[in-house]
């Protein structure tokens, strides 16, 4: 019986950091699951694949801020963004669960489905598309808007899931 949720790599920040990258991801799993538990100074958490910074991403999001529900959409973007700004309340943590199915095939564009939320600000779900059929070998996470950072203590863990 295959082991599920096999840890691939984990990072706990010892200092404020702008970008966290998981590289050299093996193609031996079926799906990837990424768990992030972070705080930062500004911006939403963003994801890119294989260091692609081109306008090859799009996403549709659903979010609630405690008062109302709304939906967002972005096309031809240089990343896929989450729903909550990292900086809203001191001591508040954003938890996100990212599901990246069939990440290692070379025939389909890659999709990611994730939920993220910060209890004092917003909760939501987003589906994102990376228009590239290459196998995903690296995943990079950073806050939006250039010089922003994840704070010390933020954690990022990547798991592999096998279908058989």
């Amino acid at each position: 019986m295959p082991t599920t949720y096999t840890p691939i790599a984990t990072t706990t920040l010892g200092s404020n950091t702008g970008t966290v990258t998981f590289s050299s991801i093996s193609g031996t799993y079926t799906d990837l699951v990424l768990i992030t538990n972070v705080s930062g100074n500004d911006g939403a958490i963003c994801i890119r694949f294989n260091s692609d910074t081109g306008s090859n991403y799009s996403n549709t999001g659903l979010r609630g801020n405690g008062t109302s529900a709304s939906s967002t959409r972005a096309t031809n973007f240089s990343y896929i963004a989450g729903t909550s700004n990292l900086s809203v309340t001191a001591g508040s943590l954003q938890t996100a669960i990212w599901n990246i199915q069939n990440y290692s095939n070379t025939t389909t564009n890659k999709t990611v489905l994730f939920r993220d939320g910060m209890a004092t600000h917003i909760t939501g779900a987003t589906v994102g598309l990376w228009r590239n059929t290459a196998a995903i070998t690296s995943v990079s996470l950073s806050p939006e808007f250039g010089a922003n950072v994840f704070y010390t203590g933020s954690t990022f863990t990547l798991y592999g899931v096998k279908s058989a």
Partner: protein
Amino acid sequence: MPDTFIKIASVTVGSGGAANIDLTSIPSTYTDLVLKVSARTSASTVNGWQSGALTFNGSTSGYSGILLAGRGDLSPVSITSSASNIEFAFYSSDAGSTGNTFANNEIYIPNYAGSNNKSISSDIAEENNAARALAGLCAGLWSNSAAINRITLTPNGGSFVQYSTATLYGIKNS
């Protein structure tokens, strides 16, 4: 290589029902917790579902939460939680919903034994083939640096009925 999704505890409510489900003596040996809840309550509401509260370590302060929910024939809604618990961490089918139907919930709790504040992410599904059902997301926070060693689930109306279940799993990151 470590195993993941290791079962820590499992509760099935008996014929007498239960006012709450209380998971105690949770070891600190894992990285994250996943709590899967299948629930129905004895209360009856106009909507067919009942929200449920979560607390950690018996504490009744320091909580916050946001719910986003789609409700079928009602407009989507987003509301905030009280400070005494995470008020919408899970949902139950209620006594007025389709028989033999239980809501499904998954609650993810990362870094539960660490020294930071504790956050949760809940997925909620209450489907009963009626005009009104609920699909929801909840983000919750307990502003407390203590390691979580106890989780208590309480319906916000009525009691858990027989066959409601809660199973707690541990996940290690290495």
